[in-house]
């Protein structure tokens, strides 16, 4: 078997092994806690911790009468949320990058605006989400309304890590390399594109990995106050209401949400491997 194929196979097996191990630990925890009757940290029963097979079965069944199977519904909701995340991610990444480039060139602007950009992250988006939704939606063209506002919220969570890391990355260009460029009488633009940007790529990608997750979180959170039913956020609220009756549906939704987050992360990871072939592992 050729090397990359066997490596991919080994990795797939490792992932499967981990999943089986996690499921095993879950059931073990349930078994120990129910047998011993412990109530700390919380009481274990079929509502608080449904069995793995209950959750698995729930995927195949409809949540309500005359509806397609849960997995189909969740799939479509996941797509809806993913659209918001991707658009929000793209928007936030571009804004973050551009802001980073601008701030990198002016220490004055940095000192003026950076504290507020940092402080902006202490504002809980969930709190301003309803206002963003009310404000943005009317400004969007028809088909973009609803999910478009959520994409903006996702962008809000995405831009900051990209901004900070772009800034650090652009400033990380070796002083001697900068001097070299100056001996070529290179103008600011050349220095930017030929030196600083390539030097900043490892940092930017480290941020993009964080941003990928942030955009999914932003999308889900953004859906909550928007009352949007078509996404995972809506599904979470929905199944939360039925939790005492059918806990496994919320768990199933969360598993799908987790998978979406991981998928996004893996995609960015893959893009990084292609673009930055010698990305340092532990940057930023």
């Amino acid at each position, binding site marked *: 078997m050729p090397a990359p194929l066997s490596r991919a196979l080994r990795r797939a097996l*490792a992932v499967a092994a*981990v999943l089986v191990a996690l499921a095993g630990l879950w059931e073990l925890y349930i078994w120990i806690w129910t047998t011993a009757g412990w109530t700390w*940290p*919380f009481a274990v029963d079929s*509502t*608080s911790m449904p069995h793995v097979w209950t959750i698995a079965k729930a995927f195949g069944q409809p949540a309500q009468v005359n509806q397609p199977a849960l997995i189909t519904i969740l799939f479509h909701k996941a797509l809806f949320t993913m659209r918001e995340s991707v658009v929000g991610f793209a928007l936030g990444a571009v804004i973050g990058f551009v802001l980073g480039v601008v701030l990198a060139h002016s220490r*004055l*602007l940095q*000192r*003026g*605006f*950076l*504290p*507020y950009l940092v*402080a902006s*992250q*202490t*504002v*809980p*988006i*969930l*709190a*301003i989400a*309803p*206002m963003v939704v*009310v*404000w943005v939606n009317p400004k969007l063209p028809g088909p973009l309304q609803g999910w478009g506002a959520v994409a903006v919220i996702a962008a809000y969570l995405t831009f900051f890590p990209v901004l900070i890391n772009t800034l650090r990355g652009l400033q990380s260009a070796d002083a001697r390399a900068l001097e070299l460029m100056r001996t070529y009488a290179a103008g600011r633009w050349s220095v930017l594109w030929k030196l600083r940007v390539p030097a900043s790529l490892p940092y930017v990608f480290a941020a993009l990995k964080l941003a*990928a*997750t942030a955009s*999914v*979180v932003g999308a*889900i*959170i953004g859906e*909550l*106050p928007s009352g949007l039913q078509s996404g*995972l956020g809506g599904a*979470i609220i929905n199944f*939360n209401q039925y*939790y005492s009756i059918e*806990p496994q549906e*919320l*768990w199933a*939704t*969360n598993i799908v*949400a*987790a998978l*979406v*987050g*991981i998928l*996004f*992360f*893996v995609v960015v990871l893959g893009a990084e491997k292609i673009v930055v072939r010698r990305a340092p592992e*532990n940057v930023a």
Partner: protein
Amino acid sequence: MTAVRRAADWGPALVVFVLVIAAWEGGIAAFHVQQFLLPRPTSIVQSFWTERHTLWPAGWYTFKEALGGFAVGSTLGVVAATLVGRFKVVGTAFMPIAIAANAVPIIAFAPIFDVWFNPLSPRSKMAIAAVLCFLPVMVNTLRGLQSASPRQIELMRSYAASDLEIWRRVRVPTALPFLFTALKVASVLAMIGAIVGEYFGGSFNALGVLINSDAQVFDFVTAWAGILVASLLGLSLYGAVVLAERIVVRWAPQNRGS
């Protein structure tokens, strides 16, 4: 540090602050922006003061949740990093899981935490904050513990130092700057986690619930005042960590004075 340098450092930020607030205030008046969407700064500050009997205690209540979660999550993170650092076997199996776990939107689990720990109890929100803090602290502390240079290790071996002594005298001090970087990130996440957690249900003593209910009745002025409270509290926790860092990690490059 001379007064002039201090002014140069903080001046621009101050100028921006004044300009933005002035533009905000003036813009709302000039363009007749609906008050209910984006209130004037003066209205917000006014509400911040007049509503203080509900907002401030609520803020404190939520802050305690965040603080508790911050403490628990960070401690567990340090413990986990130490275990993984000492026992390499645990590490190689654990790291990919940790990386994947980092990509999971924890917030989706907020309702489940509510089920586990009674939505009206602060513990459910503390749990969210703790989970959000755990990962950055663990990953960064671990990186710090592994960042001792080979020369430093060789030096200790030349003193016939035991593993424990190397740990104590080299690895732990080297890890401290990394730990504090993570704590700064965690401090912000903790407060946000607590508030977002409260969206799904919580006691009316809680800030997040208050902000949400104000928004729902379109009382945006008070909602913004509540956001201001949340933001100030988050910044103060962050500031406390920065202060602690200055004291504990006096040797880190950013803290080196004269």
